[in-house]
């Protein structure tokens, strides 16, 4: 029997395709299944085709959405046209009977026409087609009618009685119709063991939760796909804990406001994607120079310029690594899973306060937006490390106006004084400055201050930042990051190849020491990433200087790799280097 089941739901954008998928995923997860979805959509509101693929499993979290489907539920023609070639030989196509079918597409495949639109129109309105879909898919996936009705009531309970009634009528009719025409898919014959408590969320949501847990209480941002949900979620959560979001006039203002708030003592963040990130270069430099801790999320999409706002890419990396004009210390974290989105965000705030510099959490579109069932992230009180703050003794002992905010210390870190703290008044400036924070361009001071700022984060180079899986086989290591990790892992589990697997969680400062060890240990390191230049590979080469050890595999067409492609890559590169 299959390990998992993959369902594709497709239709016109705006028809509720995504929300239908999410409802189904939630209901399945409640029954104990694990799910993971991937959306394909375009940067338009309505009218274009959109589809969501959902992989469902019983035993453990899904690493990657399959590229071959067990079932397609098509609400429009394009969904068939675009996806039929990915239907498994034994797969089933369900489709609205209103769709004109080209025999060629379905030749030799099982396909069942369903009166999705007809039922919706008859018992409600045409746009309730997605409720017909739920009725039919509910049957296929083995729900009782009662559970489905609960789902629909949950979704439409607050839309008025008429709407709810009509939806229920549509649901019932569709469910009954399905009962007579389609049977439950065998995958759903046995139920999963209801072992663990679960959650469902997207990467942006995990980041928002992590931020609140870390004590973040301020976010300034400007909407942009695929980062907006971070602010949307904080706008919902902050009222519960006493925090504030501000939608600013642009990204330049968003990061400047974040800096102001953080300077005044609140843990603060902003979130954006490529085009906004470029505009935030100014603020990154200011935070770097003034040593103000801030957290910035970059949910990468395909660039350059406006690029492809709804497509996957990991091409901001070089830019984030090499910063804006001039040089300053910064930290770049790269989560690969929802759990890491959560944990690294908590970490990010501690690192920002500890090292007094900008911390960038770099994700990618698939990680940011894909809904996934995970085992519950249970509560554990986070360590909140606000870093060095000036003690009252120090402030009282320094002469009036003599607080040395930028004191030259062994490790480069100096104590902050938060506005409102008596005796801590000082100057902050984006100009080069002396220990008091006053402008100074004396060469010795400049050198000392540059060294101070740069050396702050140097110790991190010695610390691990790459997470390995495998048996330390010693031949080949596949290294990746972000949403590609799940796919790589799945491919690795399937090939059973004698290679190892790693994801990089901290890109800056690069874990140079660990990398060097790995280079001693492995014959080859194969870096897989979604961009043109092989940006991570380039950075590794630059910092470790062993390019002969590193092979770069890239893709830059807006799609991630499929499991099969990853398997093929593994195969090929194990061959070529034997």
């Amino acid at each position: 029997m299959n390990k998992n089941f993959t369902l594709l739901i497709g239709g016109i954008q705006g028809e509720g395709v995504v929300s239908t998928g999410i409802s189904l995923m939630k209901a399945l997860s409640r029954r104990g299944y694990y799910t993971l979805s991937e959306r394909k959509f375009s940067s338009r509101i309505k009218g274009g085709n959109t589809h969501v693929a959902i992989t469902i499993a019983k035993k453990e979290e899904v690493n990657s959405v399959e590229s071959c489907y067990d079932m397609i539920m098509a609400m429009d023609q394009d969904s068939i046209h675009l996806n039929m070639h990915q239907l498994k030989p034994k797969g089933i196509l369900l489709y609205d009977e209103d769709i004109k079918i080209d025999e060629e597409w379905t030749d030799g495949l099982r396909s069942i026409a369903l009166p999705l639109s007809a039922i919706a129109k008859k018992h409600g309105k045409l746009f309730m087609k997605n409720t017909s879909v739920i009725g039919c898919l509910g049957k296929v996936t083995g729900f009782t009618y009662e559970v489905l009705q609960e789902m629909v009531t949950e979704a439409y309970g607050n839309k008025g009685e008429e709407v709810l009634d009509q939806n229920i009528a549509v649901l019932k009719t569709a469910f009954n119709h399905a009962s007579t025409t389609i049977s439950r898919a065998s995958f759903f014959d046995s139920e999963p063991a209801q072992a663990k408590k679960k959650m469902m969320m997207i990467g942006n949501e995990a980041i928002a939760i992590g931020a609140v847990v870390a004590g973040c209480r301020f976010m300034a941002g400007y909407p942009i796909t695929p980062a907006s949900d971070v602010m949307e979620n904080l706008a919902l959560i902050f009222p519960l804990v006493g925090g504030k979001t501000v939608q600013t006039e642009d990204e330049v203002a968003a990061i400047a406001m974040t800096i102001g708030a953080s300077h005044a003592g609140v843990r603060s963040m902003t979130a954006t994607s490529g085009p906004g990130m470029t505009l935030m270069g100014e603020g990154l430099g200011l935070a770097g120079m003034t040593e103000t801790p801030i957290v910035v999320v970059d949910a990468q999409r395909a660039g350059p310029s406006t690029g492809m706002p709804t497509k996957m890419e990991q091409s901001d990396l070089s830019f984030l690594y090499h910063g804006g004009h001039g040089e300053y210390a910064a930290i770049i974290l790269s989560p690969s899973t929802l759990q890491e989105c959560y944990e690294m965000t908590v970490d990010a705030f501690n690192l920002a306060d500890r090292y007094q510099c900008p911390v960038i959490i770099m994700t990618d579109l698939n990680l940011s937006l894909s809904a996934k069932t995970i085992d519950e992230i249970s509560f554990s009180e986070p360590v909140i490390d606000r870093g060095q703050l000036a003690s009252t003794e120090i402030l009282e002992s320094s002469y009036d106006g003599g607080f040395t905010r930028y004191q030259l210390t062994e490790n480069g870190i100096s104590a902050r004084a938060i506005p409102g703290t008596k005796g801590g008044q000082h100057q902050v400036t984006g100009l080069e400055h002396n220990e008091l924070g006053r402008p100074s361009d004396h060469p010795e001071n400049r050198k000392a201050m540059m060294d101070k700022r740069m050396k702050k984060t140097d110790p991190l180079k010695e610390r691990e930042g790459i997470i390995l899986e495998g048996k330390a086989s010693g031949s080949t290591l596949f290294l990746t990051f972000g949403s590609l990790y799940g796919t790589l892992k799945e491919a690795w589990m399937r090939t059973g190849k004698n290679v190892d697997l790693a994801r990089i969680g901290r890109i800056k400062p690069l874990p140079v020491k660990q990398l060097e060890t790995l280079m001693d240990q492995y014959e080859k390191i194969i870096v897989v990433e979604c961009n043109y230049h092989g940006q991570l590979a380039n950075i590794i080469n630059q910092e470790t200087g062993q390019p002969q050890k590193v092979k770069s595999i890239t893709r830059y067409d807006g799609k991630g790799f499929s499991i099969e492609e990853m398997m093929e890559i593994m195969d090929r590169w194990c061959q070529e280097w034997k």
Partner: protein
Amino acid sequence: MEMKDYGNGLNPTWCKGCGHFSILRSLQTTASRMNIPREMLAVVSGIGCSGRISGYMNAYSFHSVHGRSLPVAQGIKLANPDLIVVAAGGDGDGFAIGTSHTVHAIRRNMDITYIVMNNQVYGLTKGHVSPVSHQGFKTKTTPMGSVDMPLEPGLLALASGASFYAQGFSAQQEELIELIQNAIEHPGFSLVQVFSPCVTYNKVNTYQWFREHLKSADEVRKADPSDYLGSMQLLKETEGLCTGVIYQNRTKLSYEELHQEVKEKNLATQDLRMTEAVYQQITERFKL
């Protein structure tokens, strides 16, 4: 606290006679008269000769980047509404690169005072035209004289929804002190535009020129400062060349009044520990 207690002992790098000196003194004097605890005063500035002002204050001062004093200032105020936040910068800072922030900060109406140190020229870059330079003004980038119409800060402020707008003149320091005090006391965003001659790069709009052209708003005005269109008219009729409180709307709610949550919780000082109960509450939506 005396006025001098608000200084930090540094000698400003400004040219002798620069109008900005008087603004610095006025701000320090106002702080002294209002007896603002120095640790509760945050002074944020942009880049320009003007921008250096924050660096001469004994306060929490933040010399940000060109044009961004207001976003930084708003961040500070949002974090800790107990602070008295004063932003300051040049005409280029506020009406060229910072125009958008100026308009939106006015619109948000947070309880911040913004002082525009207007010399109608870019002083720090050694003499370039500014968006408020008069027509015909010759600078290094307009060697034949500027031909564009200048922006009118007063009209722009009022159109953006300013609840307090005043104009002062560096050479009328006593009035300026009063205006700044009124501005700080006003519960909402207050903009004080100060005619602050650049003795080095603006040989047209000199102290003398302003003495000849500036009128007293109170003497010229036909309507009350709370009359919106009347204030517009005042600005139009004097071509912006008047001093005093031009417009004040005491009924418009400030950001802090509109967003009660900001007033109730001081974000900067709240306890960040999270209880399990709150965690369960915030993760509720994601549980299955």
